[in-house]
């Protein structure tokens, strides 16, 4: 034997292992292991079987041959002993049997099936959850394990929850509706407020305008007052001048009676019409030529003077007379006298026109001034009937649609101005072939008078200015522009309103007059 430097211990150990006397090598050496495993299996099975039997729902196993292997107590209570039977032969509610057998087949092919079914029982309808799971052994389906669980309580709870959800939804919906309505209401109120604010602004504007107009009125009144005296003086001075002219004429007549040819010449020149036309250069040159022919060396100035006096077409004798000695002097006398006549006539005319203006201003101021004492209850139908008279041969007729027995409260005279104004405007707008209708009807305790025409309508561009003072759509000759402004002022003093609506072919001005403040006027 040779010595070993290392590994001696290892070899001895290996040798002992190789002899293996401590081990027993036999299948039976594993007997305790097998027994322990079996015991474990038995205990495990007992535990599982106890659970299987005790669970408060149906459990069952169906083998690979399609028959029941096992069923638990719950299942047996419901369906009786089924071991060895095929599911087809078990007394299952026919309504669910076909579906159950389908599920069983699919589960048997390896896919778990889970379904809730409604089942009729002696205790009324119940909801049953069936779960069918394949039993896989080495990945191969070898039967099906099934459970049936009564899930009616869950189902009921689910439905209760569903109802609660629906209620909630309804409540939310109704709250939403309420909110929306409230919102709409607020929106309406906001709009009403906006309108009120706009009205207020309008009123304020009107108030400001009114104040402005009142102050303008005062100024106008002062001007009228201040103008009155000088105008009166001018008028009387003009009158005096006119009478002086007459005196001068008489003096010249006397001068004329002297039979002096020059005096007669002056008379003839001055006897030309008061309204002297303007003569152009041709006429003036023609006269100058005639004077020159008659031997007057510087004829142009003289011709101008004669033309200014209206004597452009003197006879040949008078031309000879003017061109002759003393003729120019006579023309000079005539020019002085003629100028005096002309000026006095112009002064008188101007004074009259000024007085007219002042009078109309006064009338305006008068109309704008409310007069409580003039307000009475009156027969408005009678008044409005006069409107028909505003029509004439140059206009279309005025149709009347008046509510019988209608009465109103106000100043009939001044309101007449309103009706007249509105009707004349309407007639103007409607033209000769158009149609104008005046209507009157009661409105609450008040009355509404409207005037409708079928004219072209009010141009949108001027609607806002329609009620401005001195505004007019008519030519200067036809109106003074005070019309609608005055109408509005008159209606304002009655506490009423005037409004209009206008589309091409239909324009309606409507006046609302409130009733007597202390009550019903009756009819």
């Amino acid at each position: 034997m040779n010595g070993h430097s290392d590994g001696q211990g290892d070899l001895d150990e290996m040798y002992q292992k190789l002899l293996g006397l401590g081990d027993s090598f036999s299948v039976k050496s594993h007997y305790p292991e097998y027994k322990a495993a079996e015991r474990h299996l038995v205990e495990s099975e007992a535990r599982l079987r106890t659970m299987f039997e005790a669970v408060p729902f149906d459990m069952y196993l169906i083998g690979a041959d399609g028959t029941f292997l096992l069923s638990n107590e719950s299942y047996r209570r419901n369906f009786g002993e089924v071991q060895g039977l095929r599911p087809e032969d078990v007394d299952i509610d026919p309504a669910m049997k076909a579906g159950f057998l389908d599920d069983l087949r699919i589960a048997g092919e390896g896919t778990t099936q889970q379904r809730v079914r409604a089942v009729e029982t002696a205790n009324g309808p119940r909801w049953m959850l069936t779960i069918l799971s394949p039993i896989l052994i080495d990945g191969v389906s070898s039967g099906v394990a099934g459970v049936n669980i009564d899930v009616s309580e869950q189902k009921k709870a689910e439905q209760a929850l569903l109802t609660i959800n629906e209620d909630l939804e309804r409540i939310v919906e109704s709250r939403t509706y309420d909110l929306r309505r409230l919102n709409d209401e607020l929106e309406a109120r906001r709009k009403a407020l906006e309108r009120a604010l706009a009205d207020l602004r309008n009123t304020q504007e009107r108030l400001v305008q009114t104040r402005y107009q009142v102050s303008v009125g005062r100024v106008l009144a002062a001007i009228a007052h201040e103008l009155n005296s000088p105008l009166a003086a001018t008028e009387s001075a003009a009158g005096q001048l006119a009478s002086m002219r007459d005196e001068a004429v008489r003096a010249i007549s006397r001068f004329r009676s002297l039979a002096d040819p020059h005096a007669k010449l002056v008379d003839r020149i001055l006897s030309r019409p008061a309204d002297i036309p303007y003569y152009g250069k041709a006429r003036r040159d023609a006269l100058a030529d005639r004077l020159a022919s008659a031997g007057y060396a510087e004829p142009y100035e003289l011709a101008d003077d004669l033309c200014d006096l209206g004597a452009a077409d003197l006879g040949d004798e008078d031309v000879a007379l003017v061109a002759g000695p003393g003729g120019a002097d006579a023309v000079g006398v005539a020019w002085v006298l003629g100028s005096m006549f002309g000026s006095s006539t112009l002064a008188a005319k101007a004074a009259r026109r000024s007085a007219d203006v002042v009078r109309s201003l006064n009338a305006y101021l008068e109309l704008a001034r409310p007069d409580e004492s003039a307000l009475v209850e009156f027969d408005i139908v009678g008044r409005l009937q006069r409107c028909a008279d505003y029509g004439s041969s140059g206009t279309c007729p005025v149709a009347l649609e008046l509510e019988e027995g209608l009465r109103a409260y106000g100043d009939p005279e001044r309101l007449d101005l309103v009706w007249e104004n509105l009707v004349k405007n309407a007639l103007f707008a409607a033209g000769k072939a158009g149609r104008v209708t005046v209507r009157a009807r009661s409105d609450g305790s008040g009355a509404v008078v409207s005037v409708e025409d079928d004219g072209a309508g009010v141009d949108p561009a001027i609607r806002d200015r329609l009620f401005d003072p001195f505004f007019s759509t008519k030519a200067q000759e036809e109106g003074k522009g005070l019309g609608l402004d005055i109408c509005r002022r008159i209606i304002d003093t009655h506490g009423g309103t005037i409004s209009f609506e206008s589309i091409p072919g239909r324009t309606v001005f409507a006046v609302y007059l409130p009733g007597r403040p202390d009550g019903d006027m009756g009819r």
Partner: protein
Amino acid sequence: MSQTYPMRKYVVPESVFGEGASTLAGRYARNLGATRPLVVSDPGLVAAGWTESVIESCRAEGLSPLSFFDVSPNPRCTEVDRGVEAFKDGRCDAIIVVGGGSPMDAAKGIAASAANGADVRTFEGVDKIAVPGPPLVCVASTAGTGSEVSRFAIINDVFRHVKIAIVSPKMVPDAALVDPRLLSTVPTDLAAATGMDALTHAFEAYVSSASSALTDLDARQAVRLIAKNLERLIVDPGDEDARGAMALASMLAGRAFSNAGLGVVHAMAHALGGLLDAPHGLCNALLLDAGIEVNFEAAAERYSELALDLGASPDEVASTGAKACVLERVRALRAAVGVVPGLANIGAVASDLPRLAGFAARDACLVTNPVRLSADDIEKIYERSL
């Protein structure tokens, strides 16, 4: 041997010997609880048709056999891995192996690896397998390996280029079916090599430090049968008596070494086979005489008995001396079956020897060698055999 009857254990699988034994494979598998046996074999046996007949016996028993034929001579650990994969993929529950040492050792490796979920290389050594494998039915197809009855498996570790010896009672098959008919298709050179392997098994078991009265019976009977029948079978492969005797000898030698262990010759043969991928029986044939020389003094009496079993007369042993006589008989038989001595013939070179000696010194077979040998001692034996 300080005691005449030292206490020894003797384990053998349930065994069936005789013509037709292979047809019982299916029934044995079924009796062992198999439903899907993995049938392990090699392409040569498949071609000979023996594998198909075993598969047929499985079908006849209502089993669903699966096949794994990807096994080469000197089975590799990688082949074992593939076999484990086939076993698991096929959801197999038993293994039936049809073949010689290579398929049987591969099947043992597959069984242990599948059951323990561990690489087969981790089982190297004595008693390293924790969990027994699935039922294993061995149908032996060569006369020599004895693996069908042994607790040994030799696997080629292709990563270290060494054959590892796995020795474990859990490697003992559950049934050994030895059917001499299967030997009829064994090529002559393989029959010679396996026969010499069986002889080495018997020699090493008989001189083993763990030998026992029971193994001695097997070993000596095996040597006698081999001495009378191996040369006959090589000369006349159709000799059914010789074939049957060799099948029996192989089985007996297997029982002997399985229980008594082996020795230095196998340790060195394993190292050699791993490095050169040379046939196991041939390696043993080339090393057996050198092993006898180094061990003779420790078991001189036993070697002289073996000389008698090899056919020498008591006079011959007495006149030439036991050592010379047994060596002469062994070398004569080796020559008679066509093996030319010299490791150089199988490709070994001097520079390989230290490495081979290193591997052999760590081989489990060395444990029961009657003489404790170091790597240096082993290297010298290699040198003498070169």
